[in-house]
């Protein structure tokens, strides 16, 4: 009967139900979009690090992120690392912002990612046109198709200029987006050094591939002792550092999470207000229930059931809209990501929000005086 009474109370006043559902719906869409953007941004920031083949990263001291590592490491560090027991390979990577000059005029900022595919450290993935082997041609590069317009090119075979060097698009990827909005441009290690005018064989990072069964933590300490002036980071540490730099030091992540919290607060207030007014309208009925001998827990369950039903209906409607927004954002520069984990979390968050909203209504009925049934 608890559920029956909750459903009837809820659907008795349709206007109020609509207001409640719209409140939950907006809240869910807002939170889903904000958290989806957060996940999308996170994915973009850590994409390169996650796809790199190596357990440890050697960076110049104080490197803030994948894009801001400087080009300060030298072959001396590479040789010292190779000498450490347990190291299978040390793959050099050159990463730096660079000016891209569009063939039709104008320029934009790009991020050069230089690595030799045969080293097995980091190469473009999700190729939709061309090949990694073709990228090895003297002027070869690979770019993502979502940035073709920004780069002023149309596809494979087009040419452009990076800093002082001429390049030709040899491969196109799909879905490798950049949080900084500066498109990634993959090329070979030496081509990257040449385009960026890097002196000698300087490098941004060394990617350390560890021998099977080696103690990664022990190796990290060994490398730290062998390579003063550098930092030895695990994949997880480097990922967290990049996230910290782009999401939190810039305030972008705080804005996204703040927006999500704001969405939750707005939803909570709207649901609380409507539940409270619904409870107030049904106060005489709750007093009657109390007079009939119901425990206060029984009445609380009715209110919580109302809140739970609102949450479920609001969630279903909200998720339908949120998923439509996710689909629409797929090919934009900042795609919104919806994962099963986020969907489940949003549902739990909605239930929590509605349960919190029920508190004011529960406090109202807790003070109910069953004697009021005689004064009607």
């Amino acid at each position, binding site marked *: 009967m608890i559920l*029956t*009474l909750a459903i009837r109370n809820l659907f*008795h006043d349709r206007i109020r139900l609509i207001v409640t559902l719209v409140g939950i719906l907006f809240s869910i869409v807002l939170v889903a979009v904000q958290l989806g953007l957060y996940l999308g941004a996170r994915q973009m920031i850590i994409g390169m690090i996650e796809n790199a083949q190596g357990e440890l990263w050697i960076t110049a001291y104080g490197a803030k992120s994948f894009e801001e590592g400087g080009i300060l490491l030298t072959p001396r560090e590479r040789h010292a690392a190779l000498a450490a027991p347990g190291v299978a390979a040390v793959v050099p990577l050159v990463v730096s912002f660079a000016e891209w000059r569009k063939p039709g005029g104008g320029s934009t900022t790009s991020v050069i990612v230089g690595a030799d595919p045969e080293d097995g450290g980091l190469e473009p993935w999700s190729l939709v046109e061309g090949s990694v082997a073709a990228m090895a041609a003297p002027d070869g590069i690979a770019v993502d198709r979502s940035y073709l317009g920004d780069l002023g090119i149309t596809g494979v075979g087009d040419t452009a200029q990076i800093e002082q060097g001429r390049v030709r698009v040899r491969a196109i990827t799909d879905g490798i987006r950049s949080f900084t909005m500066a498109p990634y441009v993959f090329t070979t290690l030496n081509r990257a050094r040449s385009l960026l005018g890097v002196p000698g064989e300087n490098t941004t990072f060394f990617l350390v591939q560890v021998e099977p069964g080696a103690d990664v933590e022990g190796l990290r300490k060994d490398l730290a002792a062998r390579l003063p002036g550098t930092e030895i980071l695990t994949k997880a540490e480097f990922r967290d550092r990049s996230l910290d730099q782009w999401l939190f030091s810039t305030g972008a992540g705080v804005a996204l999470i703040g927006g999500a919290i704001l969405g939750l607060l707005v939803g909570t207030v709207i649901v609380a207000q409507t539940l409270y007014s619904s409870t107030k309208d049904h106060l005489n009925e709750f007093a*009657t229930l109390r007079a*009939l*001998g*119901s*425990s*206060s827990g029984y009445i609380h369950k009715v209110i919580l059931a109302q809140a739970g039903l609102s949450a479920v209906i609001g969630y279903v409607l909200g998720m339908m809209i949120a998923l439509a927004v996710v689909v629409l954002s797929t090919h934009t520069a900042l795609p919104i990501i919806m994962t099963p984990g986020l969907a489940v979390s949003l549902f739990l968050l909605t239930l929590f929000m509605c349960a919190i909203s029920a508190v004011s209504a529960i406090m109202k009925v807790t003070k109910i005086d069953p004697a009021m049934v*005689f004064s009607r």
Partner: protein
Amino acid sequence: MSHPVVLEAISIVKELGEGAGKVRALKGVSLSLRAGELTLLMGPSGSGKTTLLSILGCILTPTSGSVRIGGEKIDGLDAEKLAGLRRRHIGFVFQSYNLFPTLTAIENVRLALDVRGMTHAETVAKAEAALKAVGLAHKLRSYPRNMSGGEQQRVAVARALAGAPSVILADEPTAALDSENGHAVMALLAQIAKDHDHAVLAVTHDPRTHAYADRIVRIEDGRIVGEDRRAEAHKNVKKYDITRKRKANA
């Protein structure tokens, strides 16, 4: 042989309000209700009828004095324990019926059983039986808005009856009803007292109800001022045939 006492109030004093606004609503009321009897509690407005009803119904506790219902004392019990006593021993009938407008007749009755922790099947069976007993077997799925005042009050009686309480307390049960429905409801309460061996107490101003009473208790200014016990032979109760009335209305 006289019926057993199921509810007993001894020297009840109840003070309402605080400080300068404090009022002594009951000034030492003693009252016993026996199974099988319909007792009317009559008195002018402000005499303390509703306060006494609230105390007998375990909704309020007395300032002093003692109330015992089904052998259990209510003194010093908190709100949840009083609710438990109401579940076990009391059925209420209210002046304005207090039905849930969003629930059907059977759902209204089932709700009173559900709060007692009965299973779905039990609530359905007992609610159907109670509504049948008050002549509303044909109105199980009707909403209060589609029922007359008399029918709504009979649903309220069924709701009070369904949980098989030892005491049914009715607050002005005929006040909102026309003459015919008022008689029907009083006849029903009298019949319930007899057939189901319940103690029924009705607070009323309505002189039409006298005919159905086994006992009339008068209260004034917070004190019991008189009591009439009516011999069965003198009662002018026409057995009210609900089925016949329903057919006539149809």
